[in-house]
Protein backbone atom coordinates (compact mmCIF):
# COMPACT_ATOMS: atom_id res chain seq x y z
CA UNK A 1 0.00 0.00 0.00
CA UNK A 2 1.31 3.34 -0.92
CA UNK A 3 -0.02 6.72 0.14
CA UNK A 4 1.52 9.66 -1.64
CA UNK A 5 0.03 12.41 0.47
CA UNK A 6 -1.74 12.33 3.79
CA UNK A 7 -3.39 15.34 5.33
CA UNK A 8 -5.09 15.46 8.73
CA UNK A 9 -7.39 18.20 9.87
CA UNK A 10 -8.21 17.77 13.52
CA UNK A 11 -9.45 20.79 15.40
CA UNK A 12 -7.92 21.51 18.75
CA UNK A 13 -4.75 19.47 18.08
CA UNK A 14 -1.26 20.89 17.75
CA UNK A 15 0.96 20.21 14.76
CA UNK A 16 3.24 17.86 16.66
CA UNK A 17 0.27 15.94 17.96
CA UNK A 18 -1.17 15.81 14.46
CA UNK A 19 2.12 14.43 13.10
CA UNK A 20 2.11 11.78 15.77
CA UNK A 21 -1.44 10.84 14.91
CA UNK A 22 -0.50 10.61 11.26
CA UNK A 23 2.34 8.21 11.98
CA UNK A 24 0.04 6.14 14.12
CA UNK A 25 -2.53 6.06 11.35
CA UNK A 26 0.08 4.90 8.82
CA UNK A 27 1.18 2.10 11.09
CA UNK A 28 -2.35 0.89 11.65
CA UNK A 29 -3.17 1.05 7.96
CA UNK A 30 -0.05 -0.97 7.15
CA UNK A 31 -0.97 -3.57 9.77
CA UNK A 32 -4.56 -3.77 8.68
CA UNK A 33 -5.65 -6.79 6.74
CA UNK A 34 -8.27 -7.28 4.13
CA UNK A 35 -7.10 -4.56 1.84
CA UNK A 36 -7.32 -5.04 -1.89
CA UNK A 37 -4.01 -6.14 -3.35
CA UNK A 38 -4.20 -4.00 -6.43
CA UNK A 39 -5.99 -0.75 -6.81
CA UNK A 40 -5.56 2.84 -7.64
CA UNK A 41 -7.45 5.49 -5.78
CA UNK A 42 -6.36 8.98 -6.69
CA UNK A 43 -8.18 10.62 -3.81
CA UNK A 44 -9.66 9.34 -0.60
CA UNK A 45 -11.52 11.57 1.80
CA UNK A 46 -12.71 10.70 5.28
CA UNK A 47 -14.98 12.96 7.31
CA UNK A 48 -15.60 12.05 10.93
CA UNK A 49 -17.24 13.71 13.84
CA UNK A 50 -14.99 14.00 16.80
CA UNK A 51 -16.08 12.45 20.03
CA UNK A 52 -14.91 14.49 22.96
CA UNK A 53 -14.97 11.52 25.18
CA UNK A 54 -12.84 9.21 22.99
CA UNK A 55 -9.06 8.84 23.14
CA UNK A 56 -6.68 9.48 20.22
CA UNK A 57 -6.26 5.73 19.64
CA UNK A 58 -9.97 5.32 19.34
CA UNK A 59 -10.06 8.20 16.89
CA UNK A 60 -7.37 6.54 14.75
CA UNK A 61 -9.28 3.25 14.86
CA UNK A 62 -12.33 4.99 13.56
CA UNK A 63 -10.33 6.56 10.77
CA UNK A 64 -8.82 3.20 9.79
CA UNK A 65 -12.22 1.60 9.74
CA UNK A 66 -13.58 4.30 7.50
CA UNK A 67 -10.60 4.05 5.14
CA UNK A 68 -11.01 0.30 4.92
CA UNK A 69 -14.67 0.69 4.14
CA UNK A 70 -13.90 3.04 1.28
CA UNK A 71 -11.11 0.89 -0.08
CA UNK A 72 -13.32 -2.14 -0.23
CA UNK A 73 -15.59 -0.24 -2.53
CA UNK A 74 -12.76 0.31 -4.99
CA UNK A 75 -13.63 -1.54 -8.23
Amino acid at each position, binding site marked *: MRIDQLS*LQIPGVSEAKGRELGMLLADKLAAAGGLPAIGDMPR*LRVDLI*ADPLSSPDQLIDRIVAEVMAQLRRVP
Partner: protein
Amino acid sequence: MARSTYFGRIARGAKGAAADAVLSPPKLLFRPPPRLPFTAGDLGHDLIGEDAADRRSSRGIDRKVASRREEHQFAENQSSVGDAIEPARQSIGAGLERRPSRDFDAQFSATQTRRPEKTPDTPSTASVAMRERGTDAAERRLESVVPRDLPHLDTSAHERAARPVAPPTAAQTHATEVLEPARPSSSRRAALTSAYRPDATTSTVGGLQIGSMEIRIVSPPAPPPVKAANAVKGRAPRLPASAPTRLSRGFGTFGLIQG
Protein backbone atom coordinates in the same frame (compact mmCIF):
# COMPACT_ATOMS: atom_id res chain seq x y z
CA MET B 1 85.52 52.15 -103.53
CA ALA B 2 83.82 51.06 -100.49
CA ARG B 3 81.54 53.53 -98.86
CA SER B 4 80.61 53.07 -95.36
CA THR B 5 77.40 54.80 -94.76
CA TYR B 6 75.20 54.94 -91.80
CA PHE B 7 72.55 53.01 -93.55
CA GLY B 8 75.10 50.48 -94.56
CA ARG B 9 76.08 49.85 -90.93
CA ILE B 10 72.52 49.56 -90.01
CA ALA B 11 71.97 47.17 -92.81
CA ARG B 12 75.02 45.11 -91.86
CA GLY B 13 74.02 45.15 -88.24
CA ALA B 14 70.54 43.98 -89.08
CA LYS B 15 71.95 41.30 -91.28
CA GLY B 16 74.33 40.14 -88.57
CA ALA B 17 71.52 40.01 -86.04
CA ALA B 18 69.44 38.00 -88.44
CA ALA B 19 72.35 35.64 -88.94
CA ASP B 20 72.77 35.24 -85.22
CA ALA B 21 69.11 34.47 -84.86
CA VAL B 22 69.35 31.81 -87.49
CA LEU B 23 72.59 30.21 -86.41
CA SER B 24 72.21 30.31 -82.66
CA PRO B 25 70.60 27.28 -81.16
CA PRO B 26 67.05 27.69 -79.90
CA LYS B 27 67.00 29.17 -76.46
CA LEU B 28 65.04 27.45 -73.79
CA LEU B 29 62.63 30.05 -72.56
CA PHE B 30 60.39 27.86 -70.52
CA ARG B 31 60.71 24.54 -68.82
CA PRO B 32 58.43 21.94 -70.31
CA PRO B 33 55.88 20.57 -67.90
CA PRO B 34 57.17 17.41 -66.26
CA ARG B 35 55.52 14.32 -67.53
CA LEU B 36 54.05 12.08 -64.91
CA PRO B 37 55.88 8.81 -64.60
CA PHE B 38 52.69 6.89 -65.02
CA THR B 39 49.00 7.48 -65.01
CA ALA B 40 46.16 5.69 -63.34
CA GLY B 41 45.65 2.35 -64.97
CA ASP B 42 49.12 2.34 -66.47
CA LEU B 43 50.54 -1.09 -66.25
CA GLY B 44 54.00 0.30 -66.14
CA HIS B 45 56.73 0.79 -68.69
CA ASP B 46 60.39 0.52 -68.16
CA LEU B 47 61.01 4.23 -68.30
CA ILE B 48 64.64 3.89 -67.37
CA GLY B 49 65.10 1.51 -70.28
CA GLU B 50 63.32 3.94 -72.55
CA ASP B 51 65.57 6.66 -71.34
CA ALA B 52 68.55 4.56 -72.28
CA ALA B 53 67.04 3.87 -75.69
CA ASP B 54 66.53 7.58 -76.23
CA ARG B 55 70.21 8.16 -75.99
CA ARG B 56 71.65 8.16 -79.46
CA SER B 57 74.91 6.54 -80.25
CA SER B 58 75.07 7.37 -83.96
CA ARG B 59 78.40 8.93 -84.73
CA GLY B 60 77.35 10.19 -88.13
CA ILE B 61 74.71 12.51 -86.85
CA ASP B 62 77.00 13.71 -84.13
CA ARG B 63 79.65 14.39 -86.67
CA LYS B 64 77.25 16.52 -88.65
CA VAL B 65 76.29 18.47 -85.60
CA ALA B 66 79.94 18.94 -84.68
CA SER B 67 80.77 20.21 -88.12
CA ARG B 68 77.93 22.67 -88.03
CA ARG B 69 79.10 23.82 -84.64
CA GLU B 70 82.54 24.49 -86.03
CA GLU B 71 81.14 26.46 -88.90
CA HIS B 72 79.29 28.82 -86.58
CA GLN B 73 81.71 29.10 -83.78
CA PHE B 74 81.13 32.79 -83.47
CA ALA B 75 77.53 32.29 -82.75
CA GLU B 76 78.35 29.58 -80.22
CA ASN B 77 80.73 31.80 -78.33
CA GLN B 78 78.33 34.66 -78.38
CA SER B 79 75.55 32.65 -76.96
CA SER B 80 77.66 30.96 -74.35
CA VAL B 81 79.01 34.24 -73.10
CA GLY B 82 75.90 36.34 -73.15
CA ASP B 83 73.30 33.74 -72.24
CA ALA B 84 73.61 31.84 -69.00
CA ILE B 85 70.54 29.73 -69.58
CA GLU B 86 71.93 27.89 -72.54
CA PRO B 87 74.62 25.45 -71.46
CA ALA B 88 77.72 25.13 -73.59
CA ARG B 89 77.59 22.34 -76.10
CA GLN B 90 81.21 21.44 -75.56
CA SER B 91 80.38 19.88 -72.23
CA ILE B 92 78.38 17.14 -73.89
CA GLY B 93 80.54 14.27 -74.96
CA ALA B 94 80.50 12.99 -78.52
CA GLY B 95 78.25 10.04 -79.09
CA LEU B 96 76.21 10.66 -75.93
CA GLU B 97 74.31 13.73 -76.96
CA ARG B 98 70.77 13.79 -75.82
CA ARG B 99 67.81 15.09 -77.58
CA PRO B 100 66.85 18.26 -75.79
CA SER B 101 63.10 17.65 -75.90
CA ARG B 102 63.39 14.31 -74.09
CA ASP B 103 66.23 15.21 -71.80
CA PHE B 104 64.09 16.55 -68.92
CA ASP B 105 61.63 13.77 -69.22
CA ALA B 106 64.33 11.18 -68.97
CA GLN B 107 65.91 12.81 -65.94
CA PHE B 108 62.59 13.23 -64.24
CA SER B 109 61.54 9.68 -64.87
CA ALA B 110 64.91 8.33 -63.78
CA THR B 111 64.87 10.16 -60.47
CA GLN B 112 61.20 10.12 -59.58
CA THR B 113 60.02 6.77 -60.78
CA ARG B 114 60.49 4.14 -58.17
CA ARG B 115 57.66 1.75 -58.47
CA PRO B 116 57.08 -0.59 -55.56
CA GLU B 117 58.30 -4.04 -56.10
CA LYS B 118 55.67 -6.58 -56.84
CA THR B 119 54.91 -8.83 -53.96
CA PRO B 120 52.35 -11.60 -53.88
CA ASP B 121 49.97 -9.43 -51.88
CA THR B 122 50.54 -6.26 -53.88
CA PRO B 123 47.78 -5.40 -56.34
CA SER B 124 48.80 -5.06 -59.94
CA THR B 125 47.24 -1.69 -60.65
CA ALA B 126 49.18 1.41 -59.78
CA SER B 127 46.19 3.25 -58.38
CA VAL B 128 45.64 0.65 -55.69
CA ALA B 129 49.29 0.79 -54.81
CA MET B 130 49.11 4.55 -54.46
CA ARG B 131 46.14 4.29 -52.18
CA GLU B 132 47.92 1.81 -50.00
CA ARG B 133 50.98 3.98 -49.79
CA GLY B 134 48.82 6.91 -48.76
CA THR B 135 47.18 4.82 -46.07
CA ASP B 136 50.54 3.72 -44.74
CA ALA B 137 51.72 7.30 -44.62
CA ALA B 138 48.61 8.34 -42.73
CA GLU B 139 49.18 5.57 -40.21
CA ARG B 140 52.75 6.59 -39.73
CA ARG B 141 51.64 10.14 -39.03
CA LEU B 142 49.20 8.94 -36.40
CA GLU B 143 51.82 6.79 -34.80
CA SER B 144 54.27 9.61 -34.67
CA VAL B 145 51.74 11.88 -32.95
CA VAL B 146 50.84 9.41 -30.25
CA PRO B 147 53.80 8.11 -28.32
CA ARG B 148 53.53 4.51 -27.35
CA ASP B 149 56.00 4.46 -24.52
CA LEU B 150 54.24 6.69 -22.02
CA PRO B 151 54.02 4.77 -18.78
CA HIS B 152 51.01 6.58 -17.32
CA LEU B 153 48.73 5.90 -20.25
CA ASP B 154 47.02 2.62 -20.63
CA THR B 155 45.84 1.06 -23.85
CA SER B 156 42.39 2.58 -23.75
CA ALA B 157 43.86 6.03 -23.31
CA HIS B 158 46.05 5.40 -26.33
CA GLU B 159 43.06 4.44 -28.37
CA ARG B 160 41.14 7.46 -27.24
CA ALA B 161 44.03 9.74 -28.09
CA ALA B 162 44.52 8.16 -31.50
CA ARG B 163 40.87 8.32 -32.34
CA PRO B 164 40.02 11.37 -34.49
CA VAL B 165 37.82 13.87 -32.72
CA ALA B 166 34.54 14.17 -34.51
CA PRO B 167 31.76 16.57 -33.54
CA PRO B 168 28.72 14.82 -32.11
CA THR B 169 25.92 14.37 -34.49
CA ALA B 170 22.46 15.66 -33.92
CA ALA B 171 21.16 12.20 -33.10
CA GLN B 172 23.79 11.73 -30.40
CA THR B 173 23.22 15.15 -28.90
CA HIS B 174 19.44 14.81 -28.60
CA ALA B 175 19.29 11.13 -27.89
CA THR B 176 18.33 11.54 -24.24
CA GLU B 177 15.77 14.27 -24.82
CA VAL B 178 12.88 11.98 -25.40
CA LEU B 179 9.59 13.56 -24.54
CA GLU B 180 7.45 11.55 -22.23
CA PRO B 181 3.78 11.29 -23.02
CA ALA B 182 1.53 13.45 -20.95
CA ARG B 183 0.27 11.71 -17.85
CA PRO B 184 -3.45 11.54 -17.48
CA SER B 185 -4.98 13.76 -14.86
CA SER B 186 -6.07 10.78 -12.82
CA SER B 187 -2.50 9.57 -12.36
CA ARG B 188 -0.91 12.84 -11.33
CA ARG B 189 1.22 12.63 -8.25
CA ALA B 190 2.77 15.07 -5.88
CA ALA B 191 6.08 16.21 -7.27
CA LEU B 192 8.22 15.67 -4.19
CA THR B 193 6.80 12.33 -3.33
CA SER B 194 6.84 10.56 -6.66
CA ALA B 195 9.75 12.16 -8.47
CA TYR B 196 12.50 11.52 -5.94
CA ARG B 197 11.66 8.04 -4.82
CA PRO B 198 13.85 5.44 -6.43
CA ASP B 199 11.27 2.72 -6.06
CA ALA B 200 8.45 4.76 -7.51
CA THR B 201 8.30 2.79 -10.72
CA THR B 202 8.38 -0.56 -8.98
CA SER B 203 5.66 0.34 -6.51
CA THR B 204 3.33 1.60 -9.20
CA VAL B 205 3.44 -1.72 -10.97
CA GLY B 206 1.51 -3.59 -8.29
CA GLY B 207 -0.17 -3.02 -4.96
CA LEU B 208 -2.64 -0.56 -3.65
CA GLN B 209 -1.94 3.03 -4.43
CA ILE B 210 -3.62 6.05 -2.93
CA GLY B 211 -2.76 9.40 -4.31
CA SER B 212 -4.10 11.72 -1.69
CA MET B 213 -5.74 10.89 1.59
CA GLU B 214 -7.54 13.69 3.34
CA ILE B 215 -8.90 13.06 6.78
CA ARG B 216 -10.98 15.72 8.36
CA ILE B 217 -12.29 15.50 11.86
CA VAL B 218 -15.07 17.88 12.61
CA SER B 219 -16.23 18.88 16.00
CA PRO B 220 -19.60 17.64 17.12
CA PRO B 221 -22.39 20.14 16.73
CA ALA B 222 -22.99 22.28 19.75
CA PRO B 223 -26.09 21.41 21.82
CA PRO B 224 -28.98 23.79 21.47
CA PRO B 225 -28.88 26.51 24.14
CA VAL B 226 -31.27 26.14 27.13
CA LYS B 227 -34.07 28.78 27.06
CA ALA B 228 -34.16 30.87 30.27
CA ALA B 229 -36.70 33.43 31.44
CA ASN B 230 -36.19 36.87 30.10
CA ALA B 231 -35.82 38.98 33.24
CA VAL B 232 -35.45 42.21 31.37
CA LYS B 233 -38.93 42.25 29.97
CA GLY B 234 -40.34 41.64 33.44
CA ARG B 235 -43.18 39.44 32.49
CA ALA B 236 -45.48 39.32 35.45
CA PRO B 237 -45.87 35.97 36.97
CA ARG B 238 -49.07 34.29 36.58
CA LEU B 239 -51.40 34.78 39.44
CA PRO B 240 -53.79 32.29 40.70
CA ALA B 241 -57.30 32.52 39.41
CA SER B 242 -58.56 33.58 42.73
CA ALA B 243 -56.24 36.54 42.76
CA PRO B 244 -57.59 39.93 41.83
CA THR B 245 -56.87 40.93 38.20
CA ARG B 246 -56.61 44.60 38.59
CA LEU B 247 -54.03 46.38 40.61
CA SER B 248 -54.76 49.62 42.08
CA ARG B 249 -52.67 52.39 40.71
CA GLY B 250 -52.11 55.70 42.27
CA PHE B 251 -53.71 54.91 45.45
CA GLY B 252 -50.92 54.69 47.72
CA THR B 253 -49.69 51.35 48.69
CA PHE B 254 -50.06 48.05 47.03
CA GLY B 255 -53.34 47.24 48.34
CA LEU B 256 -56.04 45.36 46.70
CA ILE B 257 -59.18 47.15 45.88
CA GLN B 258 -61.97 45.20 47.09
CA GLY B 259 -65.10 46.24 45.49
